[in-house]
């Protein structure tokens, strides 16, 4: 649908109530795959680039091969279920989801159906202004990922019109947890924002648990967004679409907004929404129809006879519960208080996605305000200019080291900025950059006093004013001294000396 045909967002919300639902797939970062001992490409330490190299007979579904459940994946799934506030099933079961597709080695996917490992949860999601929304979780279940198809020939890169397709089974069998929400009502104007915040919260959780690399651009975290509209006052739910291929937080927000506007435009003209999967296109900012989907899709689920039911002991569940990290919303409340940040300051950090970096910098010894100032200031500025993630440019430990140099007086802000720039440029640690570039503040009073005396002698009028008590006049002399010292002086010390020498 062309941009012009979309209904204005506010108008759409006036006429319709949006109802949301999300299916988020999380790739677990176990060392081996869900059901085989093949290396897991979603494990952080594995760099697997050649197609079909991280495979075993099990990944290829060769005749006679059998799946065996990865225990670590089960533990990770339980932890995630607990973090989502879910109940953990004393006994859950794998099931076969049967359908033919060339990326599915066995032509069935081992998943969980009517007996998922985690169910009935509630996740607290914080919007940008601090509003808390409770998102009801229906279930979180374990399954295996499929392989990857590359369609060659044809113009679209899609299966339609392709000359042939290549299959890479490296991803086949990567452990997944699929988190399914219940319908989410009442988000109203904030539906797009909630969508982004929900996925962001899941990302924070799996990172804090250390169970996934959670890099959306790599597909470690994938969101399918379900959107339906119903006319104001109508009880029955409208027909939903499921938008797939949404690979960034920003896209999640945009895709939901787009679908609301698109569906509203159709419904307002008396049209009907087709129940289907849709694909999100980052470049055009629009969705396009995928395959039609109906509730009657028959996957002929039945319990996977090659695997025993998963029956975690109560002790294991209790252990994992105790080991859970703090929930993201609670953690944010605690940090804001501990750091003494204003609402604005704290939101600035959170919305810049720098909470982890600031936390780590504080943990490395920096004061919270200094950590915030550097990350949201100079580092964010450089990142923005380089179109990079701040975290990828410099480590929290180095930022803390720079802060310490400033606070000890070894660096002033201007020099510190140069050190940041040097570290980002790959010149080594802050100490390396300081010594290589010779950036240390001159703290030898002898040299400073000589410079101060010289400056005062050149500006006798200023000297007079200072002696008359007009202390602010000292600025001119300080500037001259700093210039004479090539900037490598501690401005505070210069100021002290100017006042001292002027008084003599």
């Amino acid at each position, binding site marked *: 649908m062309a941009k012009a045909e979309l209904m204005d967002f506010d108008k759409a919300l006036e006429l319709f109530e949006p109802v949301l639902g999300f299916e988020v797939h999380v790739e677990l970062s176990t060392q081996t795959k869900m059901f085989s001992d093949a290396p897991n490409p979603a494990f952080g330490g594995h760099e697997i680039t050649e197609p079909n190299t991280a495979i075993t007979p099990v990944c290829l579904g060769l005749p006679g091969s059998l799946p*065996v459940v990865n225990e670590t994946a089960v533990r990770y799934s339980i932890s995630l279920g607990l973090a989502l506030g879910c109940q953990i099933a004393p006994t859950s079961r794998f099931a076969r989801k049967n359908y033919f597709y*060339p990326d599915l080695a*066995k032509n069935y996917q081992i998943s969980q159906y009517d007996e998922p490992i985690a169910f009935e949860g509630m996740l607290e999601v914080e919007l940008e202004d601090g509003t808390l929304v409770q998102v009801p979780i229906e279930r979180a279940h374990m399954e295996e990922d499929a392989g990857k198809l590359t369609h060659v020939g044809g113009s679209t890169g899609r299966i339609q019109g392709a000359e042939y397709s290549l299959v890479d089974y490296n991803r086949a069998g990567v452990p997944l947890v699929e988190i399914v929400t219940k319908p989410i009502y009442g988000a109203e104007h904030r539906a797009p924002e909630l969508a982004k915040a929900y996925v962001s919260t899941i990302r924070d959780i799996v990172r804090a648990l250390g169970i996934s690399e959670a890099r959306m651009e790599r597909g470690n975290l994938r969101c399918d967004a379900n959107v339906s509209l119903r006319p104001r006052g109508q009880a029955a739910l409208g027909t939903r679409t499921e938008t797939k291929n949404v690979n960034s937080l920003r896209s999640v927000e945009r895709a939901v907004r787009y679908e609301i506007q698109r569906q509203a435009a159709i419904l307002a003209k008396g049209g009907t929404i087709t129940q289907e999967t849709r694909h999100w296109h980052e470049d055009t900012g629009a969705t396009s129809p995928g395959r039609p989907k109906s509730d009657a899709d028959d996957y002929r689920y039945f319990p996977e006879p090659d695997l025993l039911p998963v029956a975690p002991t109560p002790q294991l569940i209790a252990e994992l519960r105790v080991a859970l990290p703090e929930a993201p919303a609670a953690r944010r409340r605690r940090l804001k208080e501990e750091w003494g940040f204003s609402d604005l300051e704290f939101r600035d950090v959170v919305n810049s996605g720098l909470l982890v970096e600031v936390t780590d910098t504080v943990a490395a010894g920096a004061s919270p305000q200094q950590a915030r100032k550097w990350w949201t200031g100079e580092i964010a500025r450089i990142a923005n200019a380089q179109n990079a993630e701040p975290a990828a440019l410099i480590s929290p430990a180095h930022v803390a080291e720079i802060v310490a140099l400033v606070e000890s007086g070894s660096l002033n802000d201007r020099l510190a900025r140069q050190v940041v720039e040097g570290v980002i440029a790959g010149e080594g640690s802050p100490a390396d950059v300081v010594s290589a570039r010779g950036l240390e503040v001159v703290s030898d009073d002898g040299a400073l006093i000589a410079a101060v005396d010289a400056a005062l002698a050149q500006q006798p009028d200023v000297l007079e004013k200072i002696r008359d008590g007009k202390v602010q006049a000292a600025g001119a002399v300080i500037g001259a001294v700093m210039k004479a010292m090539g900037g490598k002086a501690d401005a505070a010390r210069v100021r002290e000396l100017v006042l001292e020498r002027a008084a003599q």
Partner: protein
Amino acid sequence: MSAADLTRTTAADLAHRLSTGEVSSVEVTQAHLDRIAAVDGDVHAFLHVSENALETARQVDADRAAGVALPELAGVPIAIKDVLCTIDMPSTSGSKILEGWIPPYDATVVARLRAARMVPLGKTNMDEFAMGSSTEHSAYGPTKNPWDLERIPGGSGGGSAAAVAAFEAPVALGSDTGGSIRQPGAVTGTVGVKPTYGGVSRYGAIALASSLDQVGPVSRTVLDAALVHDVIGGHDPRDATSIPDQWPSMAEAARRGLTGDVLKGIRVGVVKELEGEGFQSGVKQRYHETLDLLAAAGAEIVEVSCPHFEYAVAAYYLILPAEASSNLAKFDSVRFGMRANVTGTVEDVMAATREAGFGPEVKRRIILGTYALSAGYYDAYYGSAQKVRTLIQQDFDAAFEKADILVSPSAPTTAFKFGEKLEDPLAMYLNDVTTIPANLAGVPGMGLPMGLAPEDGLPTGLQLMAPARHDARLYEAGAAIEQLLEGNWGHSLWSQAPELGANGLATALGSNGGAR
């Protein structure tokens, strides 16, 4: 010993002669290869004869000469059902769709045979994907029953049973999903065991119905089956349904049965539902004579009722096709096996391959299973069948309160003629009425020769069943019953098998030979 004598003895005897140096593995292996060359044109038990057998035997002989400590069955040849993956031989499961496919790995049981230094002779014929009771559904032509080449050798493991009955191999591996080891054993006069579900690894066994399949031994004596069971059994971390327990030695149990007085006081449960209508008179006659012998030997014969066995075949033919329809979905030409030479979409190629690659019985069961799992039918079919399965397990539990072992005929009839039941799948399915309950409940079952039926002179079989994990009890009682019966006959049943080959019955019967 002459070459003929080397094929007409037991694995236990061969193992002993090999260990004393009286014979070499090369001699034993060559004798069996010669026998295969002589008779398999008629019997067609083998789909593939190994090119490595003699070299494997030579290595065993060399190690023995060098004083290397070797396992008990080292140097003894063995035939392997084609359902099992072998890294050095094609593994087709009797299907065109896997013609020529050589797996990149060995099934766990095959790896264990090799570790035990046994000598794989080749791969044996079977009904396609183990679906059948006659080998008539093999894509490579049927195997003939060595007792009468116009009759079926049973199925699906007719190839392994016939190979052992025709002295082409002393022992073999089979797989049993609803009787595919025990029913061929009955009609060929051989011994076969379906172990407790989870007792033997399924890794590398091309799946038919995952919750029912078990790999097991085929032999001419109970002790030989036990020796092979000890080699292949035990926990395998690659099979999640494999039981992690330590198992007692089955060979020791069999030897106890041969030397001790184990039948005295044993409670033998006669399953009321597994005789009567549909059972051939000669089968019933030999069965009751056996029960009388057992009573005379001091066994306590008790009648037990398993009322839900009546529904076993019906439940089995829902569960099996359901699981098979899913297990066989992988045969789509994308990653391995046959690919139909058509152009079009990937769906077109998949469909054409499956149309050309699967035989009619496989297609029948895939359609049945797909239907049984469909939305709206699942509860009525698959769901109900699983409930029947639970009831059958409860029947077994109750029966084993009253009896130490349960008995029945292994099969309701002796070997039928080719084509007799091919057009009537239901009649074919009913041939497994006696063996299916053990698979549904996961309990172990053994078939052993019970004499020749008077009316046709063909072998009949006795089935023993024990509670899950009590396979050793089958070997102990089975060896004792075998000894009791042979004592009564004055010879073993297998020693009465007809001669085959140039001077044998096959020529006399005017067989058209191997249909390879």
